[in-house]
């Protein structure tokens, strides 16, 4: 049986999609038995997926300069990119900030919050810069498959991965295709 490597990253999301991935529970073991192995992922210590990784799963939208680089890196290194969850697919909740300027958003937290002791917006070179607008993943790279939902049902993630592992084209239908 040929192994299929899976890399996952989270960008501007809440990790709920990764949790739904783990909510496959015992079925996760089933996928591992069918040949899925983890490459780079928040769940492992591998930090960059090697070139030729079979499946790259992206949770979350793109909201910082670093995330923009990260999704491009995933595209370069993974054969199939799957956008998982409403944030990655459409932009989702994080795009609620798009109606404000980045400076207004930062200002509320770092200049005007009631509990602040000293007020200034962090800007050291070691932290990422916020993009003016949050965007879905496919505004930055080409996405091969989409699993919508907030988060998608574990069964939808299972079905998609199973089909890809078996070399078929995944398609979500009925209850598995949900935007909730």
């Amino acid at each position, binding site marked *: 049986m040929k192994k299929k490597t899976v890399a996952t990253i989270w960008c501007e999301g*809440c990790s709920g999609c990764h949790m739904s991935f783990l*909510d496959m529970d015992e079925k996760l073991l089933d996928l591992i038995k069918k040949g899925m192995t*983890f490459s780079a992922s928040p*769940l492992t210590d591998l*930090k960059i997926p090697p070139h030729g990784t079979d499946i790259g799963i992206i949770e979350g939208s793109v909201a*910082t300069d*670093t995330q923009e680089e990260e999704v491009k890196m995933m595209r370069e290194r993974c054969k199939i990119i799957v956008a998982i969850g409403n944030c990655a697919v459409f932009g989702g909740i994080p795009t609620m*900030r798009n109606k404000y300027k980045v400076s207004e958003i930062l200002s509320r937290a770092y200049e005007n919050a009631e509990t602040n002791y000293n007020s200034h917006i962090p800007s050291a070179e070691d932290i990422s810069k916020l993009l003016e607008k949050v965007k879905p993943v496919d505004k930055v790279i080409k996405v091969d498959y989409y699993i919508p939902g907030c988060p998608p049902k574990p069964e939808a993630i299972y079905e998609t991965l199973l089909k890809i592992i078996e070399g078929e084209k995944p398609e979500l239908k009925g209850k598995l295709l949900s935007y909730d």
Partner: protein
Amino acid sequence: MTNQEKITIYPVTRIEGHAKITIHLDEKKKISKVLFHVDQFRGFEKFIEGRYFEEAPIITAKICGICPVSHILGAVKAGDMIMNVQIPYTAKLLRMLAHLGQIIQSHCLHFFYLASPDLLLGWNADPAIRNVAGLVEKYPDFAMKGIKLRKFGQTIIEYVGGARINPKNFIPGGIAAPLDPKHRDIIIFQIDEMISYCLEGLEFIKHYIEKNKLFVERYANFKTNFLGLVNDGNWEVYDGKIKVIDQNGNLLYHFDSVDYNSYIAEYIEDWSYLKFPFLKKLGYPEGVYRVGPLARLNVSDRLPTPLAEREFMIFKQIGNPIHESFYYHYARMIEVLHSLERVREILLDPEILSKDVFVKGRVENEQGIGIIEAPRGTLIHHYWVDEKGKITKCNMIVASGNNNWAMSKAAELIAREFLDPEDIKEEQLNLIEGGIRCYDPCLSCSTHAIGQMPIRIEVYDHKSQLLNVFQRE
């Protein structure tokens, strides 16, 4: 950067969020400072302005998919206060039940999936297998128990809240649906089995600490104040007052949680999006404190369920308070045990199936504050509303944020103790990340954000020229 070299660990893995550690060296290649950077900011407190307070639980649930119930409960408790209502007894039981389910699933996610690979497979194990999949290969039985415990917690949330992630039944004024008797029975039926799994995990960590005593003492051992909710001395996660003790265990404060702003302030460092909360009167950094499992056990006098109380007594003998970061793992498993026992108590309460779970209300107060103990520590939601209930302002201090200073300190101490800047080994870097991992930081919560990526160490010479890159793929 002049006359300095810098080592970067990015991303810190097996934690829940985007973070990076930089290690700065002086000219003699000695460590000068270590910083824990949280790399994201999402802006919930801004974009929630203009929404109705009833929407706050639904929106803030998306701050974190690991502990959505914490944010939901923080927001609905604030909503109760805005409407000035006392929710029915059963509604409170059900909220508590879901919250315990979340503590079980979140702690077990951390202990079994994220932390135990280091302990079982070794700090120096091949990074390719040092994870939950490696665990499944080598210790399938242990891994399966962790998976089942997490699933059990998630199932409780699903039955009470209507979904595992982002449940929608929790509303200001109570809860939208009573508990189905069928579901109560399914949960009760599994508790003994879950307790046996939990006890195995607990024995494992106790044994590990005993066998590695010296290591545990050398590993991120430092003193701070501790803060957490207590209810009349009892361990508490939903209600109660905030208790603060100093590093010697003396009582500093015991205050109503709605007064948090008189006691806590946040310091902003230029190099992190995560702020550094501290006790106002003591100043920064003297006034920093820790929260979470270890802090809760340190500030509590009792854990009033039979099995947990026994374990708690043993734990308290070790120190009062206990400071070593590693004991967070141990405290976490005692909390899982107590939560499992509390779940049973709640489900056996004759009122648990009552249909009286909601009271109506309207805007009566212009402010609402909801404070609870999330799995990772004290969580504060504070909303200001207009007369129609539209949110005009929002302030949040989240669990992992409270541990921000401690995580940076842990990374620094471990780097000083275990890292040889002239001969960096992967294992040493994993030890540093492991120090952060003790605190199980949920950075999606912390910055109302989240993320992930590579371990990359960059060594710069005095003139900021990149000398060497060490990267694991």
